[in-house]
């Protein structure tokens, strides 16, 4: 380690990034730092940050593509996640959420002393706990657009709309899309709560995308298998059993004209 603090700057406005760099240069004597990366959109940060070895991310909340709060949540999945300092011009809801969760943030225009103080604090505290960022996201009141999967040193984003079903197995949840599978480390219950209008629970360990359900078919009844219903999905051959207890609720999901 060179002794210089490695900083990544994410802001969609070029003058705002330039200003932060100026300020970092101003406080260099007190707190030596180097800017290891810059991005102007959320998705770009996901791409570039993991390889930058940044220790601190200065993150604007209002960014096109993906806003800062959602971005922070995905970054939590990284093994060497940076400490995050949120930056905002004026976002009362976000500020309330920060205060509530004791997360540090900077208001634009940023002052040099405040920046130095926030950097020191962030360095001491390390990456924000995932639970805190999740609470923050809930407070901001948005559902995610993506699930994030940490794969070694990068983050893979899976659009929520691509997911056909989620199945819990031991401590992981498997996301199944048309083209593949991903493992995420999140309880099924919280996913069910977050996306209540998108996924329906068909089994103790399984959520299915409502939009992907093509129909139901009877199965079992012969041999030792108990008779039950299976969900038939759009696009993949796999059948998912519906539990007897959930069947009354599940069968109502099918839109008219199908079956």
């Amino acid at each position: 380690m060179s002794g210089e603090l490695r900083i990544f700057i994410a802001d969609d406005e070029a003058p705002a990034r330039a200003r932060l760099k100026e300020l970092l240069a101003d406080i260099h004597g007190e707190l030596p730092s180097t800017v290891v990366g810059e991005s102007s959109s959320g998705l770009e940060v996901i791409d570039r940050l993991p390889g930058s070895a940044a220790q601190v991310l200065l993150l604007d909340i209002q960014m096109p593509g993906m806003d800062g709060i959602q971005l922070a949540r995905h970054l939590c999945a990284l093994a060497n996640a940076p400490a995050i300092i949120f930056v905002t011009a004026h976002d009362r809801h976000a500020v309330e959420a920060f205060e509530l969760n004791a997360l540090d943030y900077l208001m634009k225009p940023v002052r040099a002393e405040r920046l130095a103080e926030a950097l020191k604090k962030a360095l001491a505290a390390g990456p924000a706990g995932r639970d805190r960022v999740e609470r923050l996201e809930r407070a901001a009141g948005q559902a995610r657009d993506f699930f994030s999967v940490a794969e070694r040193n990068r983050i893979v984003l899976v659009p929520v709309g691509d997911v056909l079903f989620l199945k819990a197995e031991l401590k992981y949840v498997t996301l199944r899309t048309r083209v593949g599978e991903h493992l995420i480390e999140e309880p099924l219950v919280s996913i069910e709560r977050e996306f209540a209008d998108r996924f329906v629970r068909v089994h103790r360990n399984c959520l299915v995308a409502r939009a992907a359900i093509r129909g139901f078919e009877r199965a079992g009844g012969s041999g030792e298998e108990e008779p039950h219903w299976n969900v038939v999905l759009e696009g993949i051959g796999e059948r998912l059993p519906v539990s007897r207890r959930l069947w009354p609720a599940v069968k109502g999901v099918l839109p008219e004209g199908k079956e």
Partner: protein
Amino acid sequence: MPSIRQNPFPETLPDFRNFGVTARALIAANLLALAAALLTEPDWSNTLDSFVTKASFFEPPLIASLVVFYAAAPWLLRISYWGGCALMIAVVLAFTAITRAALGEFATAGLVRTLVLAATTSVVVLAYLRLQIKAYSPALAEARLQALQARIRPHFLFNSLNAVLALIRRDPRRAERTLEDLAELFRALMSDGRNLVRLADEISLIERYAAIEQLRLGERLRMSWDLDSAPVDAMLPALVLQPLLENAVYHGVEPGTGIGDVLVRIERRGDRVLVLIENPWREPVTGARAGNHMALDNIRERLMLFFDDEARLNSSVHGARYRVEIEIPYRDRA
């Protein structure tokens, strides 16, 4: 500077160029005639006959007077209220006398009786219009408040200040210009929203605003202006265009990573002024960037206050473009 409470009622005559005012005057006069017919005639068929007979007497002077008031409206708005009333009643009496002379042999009442009737009707109609203006005038005073509510987003203010700070060391001259632009913008913002302003001033305001946004957003914002045939002497309520352009940038350009094209076109077509502001259409996201409709409703309401039903504001989505169109009557003087 007068506060909202002081001088809440502008003492001006009704503007007869406004269709709403003319229609109200017509309806009020006709209702009075109908009431007179109902009072004098005992049964329904006679009532109708009587109304039609009366109509042939009072419609010509009524319509002739309204035409004169329409033509003289810009001038009438500049003279004192009571002087204007006296003049208007004089015009009505003159036309009544002429009509009576023309239809002399069918006249059922003497000249003096006819003139008194015409004067009474005029007073009643003027009183009604005055009451109507008065009923709207708190709203007019509130227009100022609303203009403030349609104010520039704090998000814009702080980001702009931040952008200026970033300029000060590298490009002090541009920083100066940007601060001057910001000052102009806020001067307009804090001005009295009850006034009409020249279109030329509104255009220069939105150009300054666009210059600041350009600094912040760089190449992501691509402005096109089509103002060659804009009637720069037209009058319109203050701060109508700026919030619309701000919406276009905030909802159409900022949420995207690519280039956002924003078009502003202002032109005159006959006695109408047409404004078009177009930006890329993006699905509104819940929460953070909601509130577009509040701004539109606010502007629509203020246009109604100044132009009654002569103004239109429409918003629509055409493919990948979001379009706001405004239509107001062309007035070179208020």
